[in-house]
């Protein structure tokens, strides 16, 4: 199965846990595309660096647009204002790490 790796940057005034981050992304996907759409994303969190506010998530390449739109629609995490910006997308984790220097 072909996959896409997304490096994202979190903007929030409060610290964000791994669980909160993934819950927020899943909620956004379910809100916009429903449970059927969410089931096709094959989403998982690969790496999270809370001190740098950076994370890498992986999804199915067919669901890339779904995940991108859902991540862009996030305006709060755990009830506090926040935003998640997609920094880079790559087909392999190695290439993403090289480009992002994470």
């Amino acid at each position, binding site marked *: 199965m072909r996959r896409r790796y997304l490096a994202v940057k979190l903007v929030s005034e409060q610290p964000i846990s791994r669980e909160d981050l993934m819950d927020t992304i899943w909620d956004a996907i379910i809100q916009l595309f429903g449970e059927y759409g969410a089931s096709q994303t094959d989403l998982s969190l690969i790496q999270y660096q809370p001190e740098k506010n950076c994370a890498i998530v992986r999804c199915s390449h067919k669901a890339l647009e779904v995940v991108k739109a859902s991540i862009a629609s996030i305006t709060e995490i755990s009830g506090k204002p926040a935003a998640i*910006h*997609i920094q880079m997308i790559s087909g392999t984790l190695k290439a993403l790490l090289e480009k992002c220097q994470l």
Partner: protein
Amino acid sequence: MRRYADLRLCPSIEDPDQVERMVSKSSELGYHMVAISIPPNITQTKIRQLQKICGSADVDLVTRIDLAPQTSKELLHLLRRFRRRFEVISMICDSKPVARQAAKDRRVDLLTFPAANLQKRFFDNAEAELASNALSSLEIEMAPLLLLKGLPRIRLLSILRREAAIAKRFDVPIVISSGATDEYLMRSPHDYVALASLFDMGTSVALRAFSEIPFSIVRRNREKLSPNYVAPGIRVVKEGNCCPRV
């Protein structure tokens, strides 16, 4: 390399810190040009202050005014008053007569419809035909799409999908702007392209709505506001008596 513009940033003008934060965020997100909604009674000192903030973030400032007339007569009056003072004029169409008049007036750059009241989105076939003849663009603001949830967002997406299809059919340019009131509502152009796919706007059309179209509007208006402008295609290139007599 493609250059991007956000034709509607809405920081509080009275708070220079917020303006500075939002403008530097725009620069960080990859925008080269931002338009800030400016009240009509703004002083030149304030505009210079905004230009200074934008200059330090390496972003080109565009002065923009949002007009919301109640009648067609008021619309014409406001256009006469403000067209020569602002680089971009956006008309918030609150009623059908105003929307029709705005669509056929060449001095209007952007047609904006309220997102709060979906009954007042008058962008139909007739409006699009008038707009395509007058070179006006349809503005789609993204902040309401981020702020609304549930049924109101479903309705907004449905209307935006219809409006984008009508604009495509009648060749009306679409401008996508953020309408952000704080940094948390600001997104990069590519994030907005992903959001625009929710109302069936293709990637290339959405990218043009952030780059070529806003830049062409600003270029055209800056040329018209320049003291050397005479008429479309005619401008003063040299003055004095060195020109040969014919």
